[in-house]
């Protein structure tokens, strides 16, 4: 088996007296992973631990080097946080902070940012203030901002939550496009259809522990864990 993209070893995270992640050991290969689980199972916390936004109480997160350097990570949050500036400047802002791109000239950054907005179908809104766009449009700008960074791995926290069906389809198409470019994706979601269509493998979390890590078809037809089974039953009901 190829070297895993990321290994988590005995990961524990405790906050406010609650053990949100309770001894997770996991290896993820490059590709498309969906993290599923009930509310409070620890999906978002696990994603933040992977990204380094949270420091584990114990245990280790180890990303494998890509071509001798640390992999480039980007994350899109459930509620997009756009800065009080134009959609285009939001994307440029991300590029200017990126070690890979900040040395580039202003026209080059602008070009990259415009291309990223075009890929998410928002080129015509480039000059609009980010914060007055609709929720779905804001999420697409956030995806464009992440995409422009050309990340090796994109972490997505409930990217389709609180979007209407049309916006949800648009976001799904964008995620497919990003993955098609060779970016690995780790996504938490409650949206079962999205996970099933999109992911190669499923990590099912139950009360802060990995109940199973299974290829996607297997998870949705023959879940190995009783928790996964109950989760799917609940979703169907």
């Amino acid at each position, binding site marked *: 088996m190829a070297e895993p993209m990321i290994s988590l070893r005995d990961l524990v995270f405790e906050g406010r007296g609650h053990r949100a992640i309770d001894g997770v050991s996991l290896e993820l290969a490059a590709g498309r992973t969906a993290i599923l689980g009930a509310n409070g199972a620890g999906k978002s916390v696990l994603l933040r631990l992977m990204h380094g936004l949270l420091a584990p109480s114990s245990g280790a997160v180890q990303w494998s080097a890509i071509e001798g350097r640390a992999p480039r990570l980007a994350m899109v949050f459930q509620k997009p946080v756009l800065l009080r500036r134009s959609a285009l400047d939001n994307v440029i802002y991300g590029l200017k*902070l990126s070690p890979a791109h900040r040395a580039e000239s202003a026209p080059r950054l602008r070009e990259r940012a415009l291309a990223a907005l075009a890929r998410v179908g928002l080129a015509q809104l480039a000059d609009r203030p980010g914060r007055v766009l609709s929720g779905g449009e804001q999420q697409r700008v956030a995806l464009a901002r992440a995409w422009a960074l050309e990340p090796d791995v994109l972490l997505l926290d409930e990217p389709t939550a609180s979007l209407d069906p049309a916006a949800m389809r648009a976001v799904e198409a964008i995620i497919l496009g990003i993955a098609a470019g060779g970016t690995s994706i780790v996504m938490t979601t409650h949206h079962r259809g999205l996970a099933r269509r999109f992911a190669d493998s499923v990590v099912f979390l139950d009360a802060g522990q990995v109940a199973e890590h299974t290829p996607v078809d297997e998870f949705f037809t023959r879940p190995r864990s009783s928790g996964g089974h109950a989760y799917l039953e609940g979703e169907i009901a």
Partner: protein
Amino acid sequence: MNWIAASLADAARLAFSLDPKLYSIIGLSLSVSLASVTLASVAGGLIGAAVAVGRFPGRQVLIVLLNAAMGLPPVVVGLVVYLMLSRAGPLGAMGLLFTPQAMVIAQFVLITPLIAALTRQVIEDAWREYEEQLRSLGARAWQAALTLLWDTRFSLLTVVLAGLGRAMAEVGAVMIVGGNIDGVTRVMTTTIALETSKGDLPLAVGLGVILLLIVLLLNAAAYGIREWAARRHG
């Protein structure tokens, strides 16, 4: 009630009298306060943002001190700056006592903590919303602080205005370090205090009304800008 009507009439007459002396008093008031508020906004804004975003030992003590310093008594600030600038004081050689520059320094000392404390509150609230996103993009603390200062610029306008209001309205500090010298360091508030003690109430009230109008206009302008910005930028 006659004297109120008389005073208002005096105020109107004063305002339109084109009396150069009056305009020099109003001009000095505005220029001293604007200069001190400009300097205090830069210093207080940076201090407030640093305290909001930074994590360092003594941070909570600093927050308490800043909040307490919002209520610094102007006369005490005036006294301290007076002692610093007086001939025998550490900055006495600069010869600034009883000059408009001394008044700017005193107001700067008075207002910087106010702007820093209010900025800290505004930036900290925004930081709660932005923190994960900015850290995810790789922003260092100082980059996040500058980003937040820009992103909360319309809220901070109100903070700057609070500083300007305090600067324009205070009398104790500028009286002590400026000396209320006619034609040199006499501003609206010190003139009002002087004319009242001399018994020239119409002139005092007239100046008071003009002072209130200026503050009112500034606030209306700031409110208008905020409303426009909220619609335009979200």
